[in-house]
Every structure is written in C-alpha cells, then in structure tokens.
C-alpha cells in the first residue's frame, strides 16, 4: 500500500501486473468461448427482450419470423390466429408428410404441419376473429398494453378496420407498428407476395443458376430464404424502433416490402447496371469476383453403395477457394496444372470468364478419379480452403454444429423431441443468449391465459365467445 492512500499503484490493484502476466492469466480463446457461451445452458441467463410484449397478426413465414425472432430473445409474443383454423402455414407440410396433433380442441384429427416450424417458436397462441365488432375492443385493449404489432394484410386493410398505425398510435403513442407484405405502397400496392415472388420479382432468381450459354435457367432457392431473411430484417427494424422509442418515447410505423430484401442482398448488381449498363448474369457454382472460388464435381462418390441418391450421387461436390496468388500457385502445383499458374499469375487475369471456364474444367478433370473426401483432404493438406458440400444428414452429424448448439434436440413440452435449428440468427451471445422454449402450441392454446389472466375477462364470457367461434 502506498503511504498516501490517495495514490493508486498498479501493484496494489487486483489482476495482472504486466502484459506478460496478463497473457499468462488468459485462458485459451477456445476455452473462453466455450465457457462464455455455454450452449445448452441458455436458460440460466437473462433474456434481452423480457418485458416487451408483441402482437403478431401474421401468417406463413415472412412476418411470423419477424416476431419469432423477438420471442426467442425473450419478448412475450402473442400470435393472434383465426379461430379453429389458425395460420394457413399450419396446414402445409412438406409432401404432406408430418403433422403434430392436435390443431385445436375442436379438430383433434388435424395437426400442424412442419412448414410452421421455426417461424413461431416461444409464442403464445391466441385466437380472435377481429371482424366481430365486440372483439375489436378486446384487440384495442391488447394494443394498449403491448409494445407493437406485426401484420401482413393487404395494404390498407387494417386501416379500413380502424386498426392501423394511424388509429393505434392515438391509443398508444409508444406503439411500434409493422406492416410486412409484398410490395408496399406504389404501383404494385395490391400485389400479394410469397417468397418465390420475391425471388423472381426482385431479380434474385435471374442471377441464380447456370449461365444461359451453359443451358441454365433462372433458379429459385429451394428453401424460402427470402421469407426468412425478410423476417429477420424486420426484426432489425423493430429493435431500432425500440431504441428510438427509448430516446423519444414515440412509436414508429415500419412498412416492409418483401421484394426489397432480395434486391438489397443482390450485391453489386444494381450499381453495375446503373454505372455501366451491364446486366449481371448467372454464373452458377463459380464466382464472378473471385477465382478459384467455387464448387467442383468429383468423379467418385463418398458413398458409392448408398441407397439414398443424395448420398450416392451428390456426395461428389467440393467447395474450393484458392483465389489469392500463393493459394492459386499451390492449387496449380498439387493438381498438376502448372501451366495455368504460368498463364494466369495475376488474379485479374484468371477472374475473367474465359479463364474460369478453362480452370474449372481442368480442376474437374483432375478430380475425375477422386472421391470428395480425397479431394478435400488433398487440398486442405496443402493449406487450401476446401470443404465437402454436405447434405442435411451430414450437417446433422457434423460435430461442429452439435458442439455450438446450432442444431439441437428440443424436448418440446407438448410435442416431445424435435430437432430444431432456430435460435442462432443473432449469433451466440454471452449475456443474453437466444433460446427456443417450445416450437408451437395448438390454435388458441393460450386463450385463457391471455383473455382471463391478462385482460381480466371472466371464464363464462370466454366460454361464450368460444362457443360462438369468436375466439
């Protein structure tokens, strides 16, 4: 201790006394991350959005996902559905394969399809027909005690019903209102939207797939990636609006046109067109900005005897990236394509379209007598970035995803074990991690919990509404 108690000496303070000591005290980064993120123990930590209550008058994937993001971060999300019917997405399932029962008390033989998964987790499920004049007042009461709402009706529909932002902000000036739909106001205001329409209309499908000269056609992504991405972008808007409200005390209206998402993620496409009049075209599994940076086909399957064609035939693709000069030189050395390095020493030479055709053709020729694993091993041993193109089963079996909890088994309170992939679109968080508590519940499962416990409506009234199919 120093003589003068006002003097602070570094040796008196707790903690490391020198940079060297600091380094010694640090645990390895890997270990630090494991301890800090601790996947699987999210429930021991607080939730970032606890205290936020959100109404979700949504269907399908796009807008529901914007609210599910909030629910997974801890908000109390109330999903309002059509009585006895629910979200239309409940009635879809891939190839009509799998349903989880029941859908609703009155429809025990109908279930909710797997198409509904991940877009409605952790929510509370309320049913309400707000076309009924008596129920509009109940809806207004919910608005007064909520932070915001996401809806997806045709533009102006809720305005006609006096339930739009213009009306709701008078009841609750802090209210954050989200409309999410196809086009928004403008010449195409009445156009509805689906993911596939978004991909097609926004120019994304036209730059996905193989080039016309290779016999390619515009492709949509198999999954509804634009629905998922748009939902997440709405969530960004909501979080920004919540932050703004902390500063000003005022709500916001967010008007989100789904077709703008694939346009937003199209990279250099529009600036290139605007500046030079060049229309971007498809370039398949290769890359227009980097070379070598693409997916190649190997000659032999990793699973030649498998019954599943995804294993038998598709386990032949390898992603390889060796675009900077040393990597490209190494790639040319190990694949015996030395003359390519001689001809295309500079990246600007090899990134041109014609050399790309030559280089990838030669690489596939080199890989023609090899399996996917052999190719990946040869390339990674040489220090080149390469990875197998994996199918879903392989992703499930991949240790990396399991250790990080990206894919995990959830013991759903109602439906049992479900393998879920939700919960990580904000990444890992040390303090307030995202979590999935339940995947979904039947239509109106939380009616009593909300009408009685939140709004104080007597059970007799709730029963009456239920019998009239108002809820």
């Amino acid at each position, binding site marked *: 201790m120093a003589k003068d108690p006002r003097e602070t000496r570094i040796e008196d303070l707790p903690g490391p006394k020198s940079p060297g000591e600091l380094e010694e005290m640090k645990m390895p980064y890997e270990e630090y991350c494991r301890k800090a993120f601790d996947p699987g123990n999210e429930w021991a930590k607080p939730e970032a959005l606890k205290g936020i209550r959100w109404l979700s008058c949504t269907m399908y994937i796009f807008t529901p996902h914007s609210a599910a993001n909030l629910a997974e971060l801890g908000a109390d999300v109330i999903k309002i559905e059509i009585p006895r019917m629910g979200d239309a997405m409940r009635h879809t399932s891939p190839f009509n394969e799998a349903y989880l029962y029941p859908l609703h008390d009155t429809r025990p033989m109908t279930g909710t399809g797997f198409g509904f998964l991940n877009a409605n987790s952790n929510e509370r499920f309320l049913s309400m027909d707000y076309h009924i004049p008596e129920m509009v007042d109940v809806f207004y009461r919910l608005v007064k005690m909520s932070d915001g709402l996401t809806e997806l009706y045709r533009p102006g529909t809720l305005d006609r019903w006096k339930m739009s932002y213009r009306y709701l902000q008078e009841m609750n000036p802090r209210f954050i209102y989200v409309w999410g739909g196809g086009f928004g106001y403008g010449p195409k205001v009445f156009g509805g939207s689906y993911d596939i329409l978004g991909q097609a209309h926004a120019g994304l499908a036209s730059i996905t797939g193989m080039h016309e*000269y290779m016999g390619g056609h515009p492709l949509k992504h198999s999954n509804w990636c634009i629905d998922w991405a748009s939902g997440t972008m709405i969530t960004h808007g909501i979080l920004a609006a919540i932050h703004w409200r902390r500063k000003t005390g005022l709500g916001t209206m967010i008007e989100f046109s789904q077709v703008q998402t694939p346009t937003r993620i199209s990279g250099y496409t529009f600036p290139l*067109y605007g500046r030079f*009049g*060049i229309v971007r075209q*498809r370039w398949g599994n290769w890359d*227009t900005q980097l070379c070598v940076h693409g997916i190649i086909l190997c000659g032999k399957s990793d699973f030649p005897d498998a019954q599943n064609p995804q294993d038998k035939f598709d386990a032949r693709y390898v992603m390889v990236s060796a675009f900077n000069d040393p990597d490209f030189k190494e790639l040319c050395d190990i694949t015996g394509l030395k003359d390519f390095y001689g001809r295309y020493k500079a990246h600007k030479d090899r990134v041109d379209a014609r050399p790309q055709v030559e280089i990838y053709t030669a690489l596939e020729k080199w890989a023609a007598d090899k399996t996917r694993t052999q190719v990946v091993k040869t390339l990674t041993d040489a220090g080149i970035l390469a990875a197998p193109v994996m199918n879903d089963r392989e992703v499930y079996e991949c240790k990396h995803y399991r250790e990080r909890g990206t894919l995990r088994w959830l013991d759903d309170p109602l439906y049992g074990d479900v393998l879920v992939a939700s919960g990580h679109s904000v990444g890992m968080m040390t303090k307030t991690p995202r979590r999935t508590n339940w995947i979904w519940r039947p239509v109106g499962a939380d009616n009593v919990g909300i009408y009685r416990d939140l709004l104080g409506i007597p059970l007799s009234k709730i029963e009456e509404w239920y019998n009239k199919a108002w809820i």
Partner: protein
Amino acid sequence: MVDKAKLTPEEYLATILVPEKGRETGHVCWDCKHLKPVLKGSKFPPADLIGWCTMIHWPFYWCITDFNVVKKCYAMEKGIYTPKKF
C-alpha cells in the same frame, strides 16, 4: 418465303424473334452474332435500347443504347443476325 427447314438454328430464331429496331439505328451490332436484340412489342425495357451485347462483358450482358451508336467493336464477329433479309 424462305424454306424454314433449310435455315440454321440462328437463322430460324431470327425469323421468329423479330427485333424492335433495325439497321436504321446505324449500329454495327446488327451484323454481329453477339447481339441479343430487344424484341418487337416489348414494353420493357425502355425503347432506347436496341438490345444487349452478350460478348464484350461476357458472361454479363451490356445494354446497347439507341443514341450511342456503336460504329466499331473489337469483339465484332460476323453473324447471320440479319432479320430484315427474311
């Protein structure tokens, strides 16, 4: 009328894919096999394009404007795209 059975695929396409504009625009592109013209009756794209060059920025397509006349081009390759002939 020409005998369609004797046409090459490109020539045949030229008979059915009638362009909006033609040689009066003064572009050398009308003799080039890399031109992909705007088709007759197209409401979109705007009419100030004669078509797209599929070569000079290959694999991307370059918009060839009506008002900026292409007189010569390094990628010019004599083609059969002469729709007025038929």
